[in-house]
């Protein structure tokens, strides 16, 4: 018999481990319409719930008359705050330490706030019921402008806490004030500004927007009265946290709550929080004894279920005349809407905004964030972002451009001059972080070369001259952004959610035949965890990725984890996978030593098994060792081959990148064209380059949307004026630019496989890059800072304001 022995390359290729462009296992079901999303869940006797919502942004609710609604065929119940009070659920705690109305209790505080929950036999009857509920309002003065929130005569929004002058994050100094949070050294910073040669000060606003995944938020709650058990299927980025919250609120013991997050149609931060819809569906199921489905529509999603950003950042930089930064001072007015329901780790009311020193070596810095209430939807989620890092990156990257302009320095040169240098890592930032690793100069130089930066500036100079001579009506902008992110929350010493430390987990079971299942505390919403997690295990323990099933989202079977957001899956859960796999490998090594009759130390790992050092023909594959673990374990060793790891990261990870955008703008129409967009990302070790590129494309497209028009805008009486896909900007394939991607690799020194996370980098770095391109295009005509979003009309307005339209 002649058996061909596979080569090392063949053995390695067979694993489809880390670094390979493995095709996604998820796609097999998704391309055939066989995904299983929440709205696909159908249970016998299932009812449907729908909300009556407020037409007003601020009003007293005088009366809710449900008598007509209850006569509508198919309508079974109308739940109001009064109903919820009987189970003590009219209000619920938020992740940020505030409380929030589940259903309007006496007043409404934002347009489309939930007032009543109509339960009916199907979604049509529920909608009929909603139409038939009559609400009597008395309107109150509306507060929309964040800058007026703290005026002495500003309307009082939160009557429930008007006498409570201390909140979850310290003292409140006004009835619309939530917290003041400060970081850094005020005195040293003030002193540096006092003697600075050059300073800038600008209000840089990052407008309110919304993550709007293609699937809205939804759930099915099913309470079994006999067993006293509650099962909830939902669009949950963090299923275990939802289980804990549901247990604390409903008093149902946690082991009797089963939370299942099936396939999720995109999350982007929108699906982290607990929303009134979930609570109402659960209560409705308990009350009716039937399963209840709640599916919000797009308008409800955009106007009521969270928001992102809404930061007004007064940013000051001090520098020397020759372009060395000496201090940074930032004050943020943070508009949190009607309730502080921001999804941040408990101790971080402004998330990780204190990463706002960016990639630059600021000797001193001081930051103050004031959180305030307005008559807008609550939420403050991290839209493809790690807790306010996008805001921070926008703040510093715009401000650096403004300072470069003031100094008369090239924006790239100014950045190169101020980067944290490679030998400074681990680097302690002035606002308290320890950056684990980085090589900014290498990345920036590579990017500048790739885009032909010098030539671009030369071309721009020519175009500007031609414009001034009246030979063209087009101006050219070169946008630069060099961002540093902070992701992978986080170390238990400073990160928790409702008191639960932000570790994450993985349990691996290797079956007798050498196939395996891995169960995780995270939850993919499109990131491809089923594919990439298996790749990590494949490399670690030598089982082909195709023989490993990854399962997430079922709290009964998965180990407790904090979920997927803030680019934490790879930094935290990815590390848990490697650690669990290494426990399995250690046990397999004991079994191999016994079988091969050598000491463990005489063995070495070789792709897919152990071999005796110096005697490569004496070896055992992982497949053989798995069988032995169940068939003939060494004396004294427990049978089986399983491991679980709860990973508490020692530090965050700090991905970074250099982005360039080339844009041409027609000053007469405001129409811009993205000529080129180049993104270099350094996310450390790359697990699946295909998926990384895909994440970068997606994140850049969201960044493009946000910078160039995507906004939740309110009129002066608090109506959302663009709350549907009709006018909320979601780019189609036609508007979306083409993306060029590139990379450098600086592995994280503290992560077991050196990976840092990438999903959010393109959103973080992309927004300032587009905005800087617009600003750069106009700068030679005398502008200093043009606020986002930069839609055609607003760009046209800028040109008009400059007198370019004659």
């Amino acid at each position, binding site marked *: 018999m002649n058996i061909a022995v596979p080569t090392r390359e063949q053995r390695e290729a067979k694993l489809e481990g880390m670094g390979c*462009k493995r*095709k*996604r296992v*998820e*796609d*097999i*079901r*998704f*391309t*055939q*319409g*066989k*995904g*299983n*999303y929440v*709205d*696909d869940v*159908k249970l016998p006797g299932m009812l449907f719930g729908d909300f009556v919502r407020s037409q007003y942004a601020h009003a007293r609710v005088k009366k809710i008359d449900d008598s007509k609604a209850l006569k509508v065929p198919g309508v079974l119940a109308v739940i109001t705050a009064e109903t919820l009070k009987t189970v003590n659920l009219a209000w619920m705690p938020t992740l940020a330490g505030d409380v929030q109305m589940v259903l309007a209790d006496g007043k409404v505080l934002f347009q489309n706030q939930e007032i009543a929950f109509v339960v009916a036999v199907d*979604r*049509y009857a529920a909608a009929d019921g909603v139409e038939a509920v009559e609400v009597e309002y008395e309107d109150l003065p509306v507060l929309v402008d964040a800058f007026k929130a703290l005026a002495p005569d500003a309307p009082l929004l939160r009557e429930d806490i008007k006498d409570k002058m201390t909140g979850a994050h310290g003292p409140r100094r006004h009835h619309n004030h939530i917290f003041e949070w400060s970081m850094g050294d005020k005195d040293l910073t003030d002193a540096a500004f006092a003697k600075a040669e050059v300073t800038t000060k600008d209000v840089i606003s990052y407008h309110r927007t919304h993550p*709007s*995944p*293609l*699937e*809205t938020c939804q759930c099915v709650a099913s309470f079994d009265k006999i067993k006293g058990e509650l099962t909830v299927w939902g669009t949950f980025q963090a299923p275990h946290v939802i289980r804990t919250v549901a247990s604390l609120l409903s008093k149902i013991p946690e082991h009797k709550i089963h939370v299942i997050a099936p*396939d*999720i*149609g*995109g999350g*982007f931060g929108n699906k982290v929080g607990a929303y009134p819809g979930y609570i109402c569906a659960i209560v409705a199921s308990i009350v009716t004894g039937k399963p209840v489905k709640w599916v919000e*529509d*797009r*308008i409800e999603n955009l106007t009521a279920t969270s928001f992102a950003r809404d930061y007004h950042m007064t940013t000051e930089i001090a520098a020397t005349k020759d372009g060395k930064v000496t201090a940074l001072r930032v004050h943020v007015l943070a508009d949190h809407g009607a309730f502080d329901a921001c999804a941040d780790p408990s101790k971080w009311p402004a998330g990780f905004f204190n990463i706002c020193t960016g990639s630059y070596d600021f000797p001193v810095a001081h930051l103050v964030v004031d959180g305030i209430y307005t008559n807008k939807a609550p939420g403050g989620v991290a839209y493809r972002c790690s807790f306010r890092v996008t805001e921070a990156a926008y703040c510093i990257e715009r401000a650096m451009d403004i300072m470069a302009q003031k100094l008369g320095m090239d924006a790239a040169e100014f950045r190169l001059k101020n980067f944290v240098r490679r030998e400074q890592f681990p680097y302690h930032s002035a606002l308290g972080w320890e950056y684990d690793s980085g090589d900014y100069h290498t990345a920036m130089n590579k990017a500048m070369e790739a885009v032909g930066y010098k030539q671009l500036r030369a071309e721009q100079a020519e175009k500007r001259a031609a414009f001034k001579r009246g030979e063209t009506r087009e101006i050219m902008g070169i946008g630069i952004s060099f961002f540093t992110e902070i992701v992978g929350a986080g170390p238990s010493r400073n990160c928790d959610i409702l008191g639960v430390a932000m570790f994450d987990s993985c349990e691996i079971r290797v079956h007798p035949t050498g196939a395996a299942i891995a169960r995780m505390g995270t939850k993919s*919403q*499109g*990131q*491809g965890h089923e594919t990439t997690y298996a790749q990590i295990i494949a490399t670690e323990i030598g089982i082909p990725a195709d023989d490993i099933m990854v399962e997430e989202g079922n709290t009964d079977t998965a180990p407790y984890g904090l979920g997927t957001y803030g680019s934490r899956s790879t930094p935290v859960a990815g590390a848990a996978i490697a650690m669990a796999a290494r426990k399995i490998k250690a046990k397999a090594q004991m079994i191999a030593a016994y079988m091969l009759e050598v000491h463990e130390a005489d063995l070495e790992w070789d792709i897919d098994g152990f071999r005796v050092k110096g005697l490569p023909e004496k070896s055992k594959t992982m497949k053989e060792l798995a069988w032995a673990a169940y068939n003939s374990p060494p004396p004294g060793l427990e049978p089986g081959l399983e491991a679980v790891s709860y990973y508490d990261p020692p530090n965050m990870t700090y991905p970074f990148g250099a982005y360039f955008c080339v844009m041409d703008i027609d000053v007469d129409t405001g129409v811009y064209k993205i000529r080129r967009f180049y993104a270099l990302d350094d996310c450390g070790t790359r697990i699946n*380059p*295909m*998926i990384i*590129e*895909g*994440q970068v*494309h*997606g*994140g*850049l*497209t*969201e960044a493009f949307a946000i910078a160039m028009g995507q906004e939740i805008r309110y009129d002066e009486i608090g109506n959302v004026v663009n709350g*549907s*896909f*009709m006018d909320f900007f*979601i780019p*189609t*394939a*036609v508007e*979306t630019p*083409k*993306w060029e*991607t590139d990379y450098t690799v600086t592995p994280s020194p503290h992560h077991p496989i050196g990976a840092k996370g990438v999903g959010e980098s393109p959103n973080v770095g992309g927004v300032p890059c587009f905005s800087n391109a617009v600003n750069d295009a106009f700068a030679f005509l005398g502008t200093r800072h043009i606020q986002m979003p930069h839609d055609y009309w607003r760009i046209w307005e800028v040109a008009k304001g400059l007198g370019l339209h004659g």
Partner: protein
Amino acid sequence: MAKMHVKMNVNGAEVESLVEPRTLLIHHLRETLNLTGPHIGCDTTHCGACTIDMDGKSVKSCTVFAVQADGAMITTIEGMANPDGTLHALQEGFRMMHGLQCGFCTPGMIVRAHRLLKEIPNPTEDEIRFGIAGNLCRCTGYQNIVKAIQYAAAKLSGAPMQEAAE
């Protein structure tokens, strides 16, 4: 509400049902016929997640009443595979070129691309981008969707392409 009798051919099978006149086709497909491939992503006919093929046209099934589909020939994502059970070139292309992430837009996107390739068998990139502009994707940034459609076009015209996803 009085129900009406409708009969349609869905993925090759004749189906008859009684529906309320106001029932949207997407709800009829998803809830009565259990075809949960087409999805719902908006209320304003913008997202295309609900796209099906109806009488030789791409149709947003959230904006058609089931009764309007009486007598229609309908194909949903569930009916896209080849008669021998192998996957359609588009289904294969989307996987090969990484043209999907969360998968929520994918059924509508593939069904739309199917009709596009019937209309224009060898589309240019611009024609593809314009041709799928009625379908929104929040995850991919479209670049790999374009490639997936190019992959399928090449395969269907007998000249398979070699280039893999980035």
